[in-house]
């Protein structure tokens, strides 16, 4: 039976696959090949094989031609690269417009793998150059920032690495520094920044604006004639000191007031007395006042008699009470209506000229008191006096009603009623 070669359609040469081909002899059917028992190829199979092999040969010849052309083109390009500018005449030279017309131009940058090989070499070289070192003691410094060109940037040991250095010297790094030494500028002079402030002479300016415009190089006293622009100065001049380190102005005095705190004890020539102004103090603000007050008697306490000094013009009654204490006579004058007799807190003795009929009214009578009232009839006479309602009068006693006659009324009040008595005939 025929073997179907599936590879034939793919243009791959036939292969004898002995594992599946059986070949036998004509005489005794003995196996002639490996596992072969029959001749399996038929004439049509041979024709297919011949046709396929012919096609394969044709294809290979065509491929060889293309490869040869490609190699020739490559060879030409390499020749262009290696032998230019040996004249290589082309009608396109000087006339190429489109980039695809430059395909025959060969650039070293376009050689496959060349850049990579250069990179590999460069990396290896950089690694070797990076391994270059110098021991610290030599003082050699190698600048390997560009690995292809390492540069010895320093070939002397550092100052710290120098042995047996002389002592007591100052380094240039100490120039112009604290505890160092001063430098010189281009004119051979010490810069102002390294000199203590020498320009501290007094400055006088017209106002605060001119003061602020001053260019000062150190602590400087400044007198401002009109310092009213300073919010702390109402008017007049003021004196300032410029603090150069802190760039601030310090006011030391001004015309309108003293900006100083001075103890009273430190003032000399001050007056011993002066017109005081009315003001108040707390007891605690006066030394010893509370102690002195504690030694005084309270106003509610009873004053014992031995504390009282007898004097002619001092007494213990009010002025209103003097009439009673002195038993003064209170003259009502001529009355036509009923007067109100005072209580005995004021007077005991009264005098009344009767101009009409009256009633005796006593305000706030006090128990145990005696009232003596002198009644005088006027020229008309016949005037009557009505006693208080609670009065007891002995029988037969009455006022004398004769014109210009005098009658004396005595009233004793016991808290309840009045004991009255008329006396006349004077």
């Amino acid at each position, binding site marked *: 039976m025929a073997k179907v070669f599936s590879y034939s359609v793919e243009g791959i040469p036939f292969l004898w696959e002995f594992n599946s081909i059986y070949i036998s002899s004509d005489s005794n059917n003995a196996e002639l090949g490996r596992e072969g028992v029959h001749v399996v190829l038929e004439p049509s199979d041979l024709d297919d094989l011949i046709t396929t092999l012919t096609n394969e040969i044709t294809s290979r010849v065509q491929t060889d031609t293309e490869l040869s052309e490609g190699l020739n083109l490559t060879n030409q390009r390499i020749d262009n690269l290696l032998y*230019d500018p040996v004249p290589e005449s082309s009608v396109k*030279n000087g006339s*190429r*417009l*489109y*980039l695809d*017309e430059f395909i025959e131009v*060969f*650039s070293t940058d376009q050689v496959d793998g060349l*850049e990579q090989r250069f990179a590999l070499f460069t990396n290896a070289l950089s690694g070797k150059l990076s391994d270059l070192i110098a021991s610290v003691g030599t003082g050699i410094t190698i600048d390997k920032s560009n690995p292809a060109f390492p540069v010895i940037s320093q070939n002397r040991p550092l100052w710290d690495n120098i042995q047996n250095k002389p002592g007591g010297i100052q380094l240039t790094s100490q120039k112009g520094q604290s505890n160092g030494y001063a430098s010189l500028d281009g004119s051979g002079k010490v810069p102002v920044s390294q000199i203590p402030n020498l320009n501290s002479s007094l400055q006088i300016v017209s106002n605060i604006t001119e003061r602020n415009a001053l260019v000062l190089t150190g602590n400087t006293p400044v007198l401002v004639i009109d310092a009213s622009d300073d919010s702390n100065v109402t008017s007049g001049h003021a004196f300032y000191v410029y603090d150069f380190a802190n760039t601030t102005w310090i006011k030391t005095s001004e015309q309108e007031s003293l900006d100083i705190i001075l103890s009273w004890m430190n003032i000399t020539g001050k007056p011993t007395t002066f017109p005081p102004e009315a003001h108040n103090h707390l007891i605690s603000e006066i030394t010893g006042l509370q102690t002195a007050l504690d030694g005084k008697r309270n106003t509610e306490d009873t004053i014992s008699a031995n504390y009282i000094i007898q004097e002619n013009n001092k007494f213990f009654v009010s002025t209103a009470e003097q009439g009673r204490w002195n038993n003064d006579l209170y003259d009502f004058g001529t009355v036509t209506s009923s007067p109100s007799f005072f209580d005995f807190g004021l007077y005991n003795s009264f005098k009344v000229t009767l101009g009409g009929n009256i009633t005796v009214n006593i305000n706030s009578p006090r128990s145990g008191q005696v009232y003596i009232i002198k009644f005088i009839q006027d020229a008309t006479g016949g005037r009557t006096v009505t006693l208080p309602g609670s009065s007891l009068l002995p029988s037969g006693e009455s006022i004398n009603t004769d014109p210009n006659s005098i009658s004396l009324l005595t009233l004793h009040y016991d808290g309840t009623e009045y004991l009255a008595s008329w006396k006349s005939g004077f």
Partner: protein
Amino acid sequence: MPQLNLSHKFSYSQSYRRRDEQVAPDNFSRYTETATISKVYVEKAKEIRIVNPLFMITEFRSKISLENPVEFAFFLANENIESIFNDSYQKFIDPNAGRYNTIVAPNEPIPMINPAVLQAGFSYRIGYFEIPEYSDFPDDTEENFPFASISKIMFDARIQKQLAAIYTIKSVSFATNEQFLIKNTNGYEYLYLIPFIQKIQNTEIALAGRVNFQLEY
């Protein structure tokens, strides 16, 4: 302030024929040069910032080494400075078509460059075609290149411009972590992107690529 992410294609080529390469009467040296012209409208902004230009070179060929590299310039200028190419030489124009299908006769104006289509479409290219290297053959003392070259737009004193940056184009792509601020005090309208070469090279040069950058103005 607008922030534009721009990506412009560019190309440059120079073809050269040496003297005596051909027989008489063609035994004079000549060249053909092409280059793209790109421009971006910046609205006369007073400040323009170009951030991180990235050059992606897709093609770079030269037959022999170049004495002067191909350079790429950013500069500010006004509208229609391409009229500098209205000269006495014949030119081939590729007006965003991909083909040099427009021939501009000597002393004729070149077609308008539309900045809006430069980024999306084909590049606008100008080609000086088969220009004799010298105008006084066979003495060969008067060069034509300064007058028939893309570099005219960079070096001609008649064009007022403000240069922003110049990069050298090599065969490899490269990125720059640069941000540079340009004070557009003259109120120029356009940012031009021009590849050019300063002096004619006696060899074939061809390059193409794309430049990306961020533009703030």
